[in-house]
């Protein structure tokens, strides 16, 4: 199912190792990151195959956004860890401009309308505005934004702002997409709609996605694989394959396999949440 994936940044498949077995698009080995006295990540191991949808869950403050900042190229991990992208070992900074990153907040620019916000990355790349706008206009319907192209962010609802931010991320066509809690601030109904919509769009464009969420249902519903992170310092505690068939229907959340997966994941998360809660309490007492 991953044979047809080709984005312009990926080497053309055909090198001997690529034909044998699809090498991971992204590989992290023993990645550690400390901020002064705070260890945010410690010995994190993970890999993402091309075309995969991997979700990441973990207690608050366990280093999920830190992981994304590293993979987006914004922060360098501590020395000793290994970072591989498209098969080559690299520094985090080499990934700047090669991964499409959607941060935890939408960060739309208030002086740009919907279309011009969506084409921000294309403009940075140097694509002429007219061409970039034409490209964005064609995508509007899929993102449920038809008729809103001239609106400004302050005129949009939360769900729409999120879709504009997603469209900006999609238009920056890169092999790997990082989505940091894209639906975290939405109400349950909008969120469920956005999840189904994201799966549709993902299936159509076949991008590789790494997706952070607080919501276990969301993690299972969307993911091929769920990574559960430990309490801070974060590393991968559990890697759970989700072998539910696609396309997934909303009713799947009540299917026995789904519930079983949820039980396993919740147990793992609860254990870690307890740890981070206890360490927070201990710290409180110490000070």
């Amino acid at each position, binding site marked *: 199912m991953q044979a047809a994936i080709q984005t312009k940044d990926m080497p053309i498949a055909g090198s001997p190792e690529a034909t044998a077995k699809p090498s991971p698009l992204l590989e992290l080995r023993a990645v550690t990151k400390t901020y002064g006295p705070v260890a945010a990540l410690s010995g994190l191991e993970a890999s993402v195959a091309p075309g995969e949808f991997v979700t990441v869950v973990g207690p608050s403050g366990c280093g999920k956004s830190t992981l994304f*900042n590293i993979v*987006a*190229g*914004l922060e360098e991990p501590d020395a000793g860890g290994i970072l591989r992208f498209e098969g080559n070992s690299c520094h985090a900074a080499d990934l*700047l*401009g*090669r*991964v*499409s*990153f959607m*941060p935890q*907040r939408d*960060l739309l*620019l*208030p*002086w740009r309308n919907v279309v011009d916000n969506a084409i*921000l*990355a294309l*403009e*940075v*790349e140097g694509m002429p505005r007219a061409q970039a706008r034409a490209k964005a206009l064609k995508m509007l319907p899929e993102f449920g934004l038809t008729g809103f192209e001239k609106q*400004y*962010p*302050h005129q949009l609802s939360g769900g729409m702002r999120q879709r504009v931010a997603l469209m900006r991320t999609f238009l*920056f066509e890169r092999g790997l997409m990082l989505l940091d809690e894209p639906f975290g601030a939405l109400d349950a109904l909008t969120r469920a709609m956005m999840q189904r919509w994201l799966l549709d769009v993902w299936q159509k464009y076949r991008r590789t996605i790494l997706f952070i969420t607080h919501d276990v249902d969301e993690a299972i519903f969307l993911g091929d694989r769920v990574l559960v992170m430990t309490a801070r310092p974060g590393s991968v505690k559990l890697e759970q394959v989700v072998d539910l068939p696609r396309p997934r229907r909303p009713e799947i959340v009540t299917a026995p396999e789904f519930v079983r997966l949820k039980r396993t994941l919740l147990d793992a998360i609860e254990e870690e949440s307890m740890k981070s809660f206890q360490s927070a309490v201990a710290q409180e007492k110490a000070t």
Partner: protein
Amino acid sequence: MSGSPLASSPLAVQRGILGAVLLVVCWEGLARGLHLPSYVLPAVSEILAGVWSKRALLGEAAGYTVLEALVGYGLGCLIGIGLAVAITMLPALRAVILPAATAINSVPVVAYSPLILLWFGIGVASKMVMVAMALSFTVFLSTLAGLDRVDRRAIDLMRSFGAGRLSILWRLRLPTALPLLLAGMRVSTVRSVIVAIITEMLGAYGGLGWVIYQAVLQIDFVQVWSAIFVASAASLSFFGMIGFLERKILFWK
């Protein structure tokens, strides 16, 4: 954003006009009722008549002053914005420029006027330089504050798109700085006219400040007030113009 300084509701405009009318009526009544001599306070009607009868003289003087104020304003804004951008792009410059600019500005600009008149002469050039000096620091500080206010995470987002410093400056920092930059520019309008007039009083070939100075020597207080009226009309319209532009440009506020 409700209650922003930019919002001028019809009610606020009405109140402003009402206040101005009340002031004029009180002034007129006071000056006439108490038979104040014109060296104390001439009546508004007297002043307006003075403006009309001396319209040629005042018009020419206003032309001088407005030219000095506008050119000085443009120069001052360019210098202020340019320095703020330079500091942002080359942070190493910050440690040099900031203390120097603060030191120059720790003394009121008028203190430099003898030197400026000496260097640039009694003509319009010295006034332009004085106005530029007086404004550039205000515009510099407000632009710098605006440029510094940019969201770290937005910069990170731009960097993740592979954007360089220039691209981030142009697409993110400058638009973010605009509200504060324009507020600084709006405040500076009135100051530009004031500084031009004060410098003219210290030595000039023409201009409203020069007219005021001459009128005082000739004990013609109606003319002093006429020149003051024309000067405030000029600075108010300048202020209004920039304020209008500000509202147009900052449509998202």
